[in-house]
């Protein structure tokens, strides 16, 4: 089967946008991300990953695919397996149908990942579009080119255990909607996203989560090693985990811009500009964090906390503006 590989910023939005596009509904990555109202922020100190609190810039894994398909009316069939042998066989049968298959895998067991990037992250998505004997043809959206992976490695990656265990999850697009009413779904998605960012019932999610993290930074212990690990962790969550820059903010700004063109809306164009400016603020924040890591005290906890508050205020302003637009 021929499959158009396209490199994207984020694995989940990249996989679903290329699967849906392959099925016959051209959809860009930013559109997939935005229509799934996937932008978020969460700082959850109770949940620890490798000893560091959970910090997320988007909705949890699988929300992008499920949210997008629900909003657009795309039908996707998901399957999980308790038995790896059954999972491998089902994958072979699915490829034989001639439609590409999406998989959830662990990053650690995929041999084509650079050594330094191989961490135990279990919710990486990729597309399998062919098989040649024991080798699978894989389009991994965060890489430049398609790759070939031996079945041994792929099975290991599909059935890795631990947090967010994929359990061999595979999915295929079953059917597409007749048409998409962008004038309806775009305001819907933006309005829903406003609720995530501004209306979460807990102070750890959305803009309130940013303010919470800012207070936490200001009160951080003075131990340089602890600081270094914590600040480095924030930067990694924001920049390293395939975010398209500034923790998905640029990706979302791109969605707003594309929507503005579709709906001929100057307001959305303005919101896109504001989101870009918030993203630039996030990049400056990451830069300052790493400066502080390299030389403790060179920026200072108070200044870092202040920078994060600026990000929070900028985003709050964009979201209020967008909410007014959806209500107008």
């Amino acid at each position: 089967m021929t499959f158009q590989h396209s490199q994207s910023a984020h694995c989940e939005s990249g996989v679903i946008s290329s699967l849906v596009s392959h099925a016959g509904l051209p959809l860009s990555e930013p559109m997939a991300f935005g229509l799934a109202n996937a932008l978020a922020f969460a700082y959850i100190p109770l949940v620890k990953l490798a000893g560091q609190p959970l910090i997320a810039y988007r909705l949890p894994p699988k929300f992008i695919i499920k949210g997008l398909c629900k909003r657009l009316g795309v039908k996707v069939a998901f399957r999980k397996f308790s038995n790896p042998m059954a999972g491998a066989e089902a994958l072979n049968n699915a490829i034989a149908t001639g439609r590409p298959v999406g998989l959830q895998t662990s990053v650690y067991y995929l041999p084509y990942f650079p050594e330094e990037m191989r961490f135990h992250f279990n919710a990486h998505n990729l597309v399998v579009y062919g098989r040649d004997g024991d080798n699978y043809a894989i389009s991994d959206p965060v890489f430049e080119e398609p790759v070939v992976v031996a079945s041994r490695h792929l099975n290991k990656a599909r059935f890795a255990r631990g947090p967010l265990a994929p359990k061999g999850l595979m999915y295929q697009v079953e059917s597409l909607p007749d048409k998409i009413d962008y004038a309806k779904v775009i305001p819907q998605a933006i309005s829903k996203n406003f609720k995530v960012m501004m209306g979460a019932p807990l102070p750890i999610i959305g803009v309130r989560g940013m303010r919470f993290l800012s207070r936490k930074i200001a009160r951080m212990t003075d131990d340089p090693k602890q600081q270094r690990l914590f600040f480095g962790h924030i930067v990694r969550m924001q920049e390293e985990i395939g975010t398209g820059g500034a923790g998905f903010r640029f990706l979302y700004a791109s969605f707003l811009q594309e929507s503005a063109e579709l709906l001929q809306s100057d307001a959305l164009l303005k919101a896109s500009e504001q989101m870009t400016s918030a993203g630039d603020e996030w990049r400056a924040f990451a830069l300052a964090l790493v400066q502080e890591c390299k030389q403790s005290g060179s920026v200072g906890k108070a200044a870092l906390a202040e920078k994060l508050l600026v990000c929070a205020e900028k985003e709050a302003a964009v979201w209020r503006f967008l909410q007014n637009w959806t209500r107008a």
Partner: protein
Amino acid sequence: MRVDEVPQDNSITYAGHKKVLYAQDASGHYMTVQSSGWVVEETATCDAVAEYEARAEEARLQVLAGTQSPLAYHMYRCRMDLPLLAQVSGVWRWRIRRHFNPRHFARLTQRQLQRYADVFDISVAELKTVPGLDP
């Protein structure tokens, strides 16, 4: 971020690969741009890797000194910590902690050793040793 502001720092963590970022061209239009890395991100990633390496090295020296079993070394080498190893292997934390003791580790059954070896993706023989240890 403008296209000309997209960092091209040739990060070693990318191993020659390029990653896609979203940036605006001169007219403000968003497009995807390949980036060969950003020093800021590279520093943070290398720090995280170095942390595991330092812990693995510490564990290795303890194995050579005979105060710890090779299990802890392999755990850190595979970028895991105790809670993660417990989740991945399905062995309770207090039992893993017990297996860090060379005396208890030496008495493990083949099946139990195989369980750890599978998680680390190595053989049982490799699991029982660390670099620099005479067999």
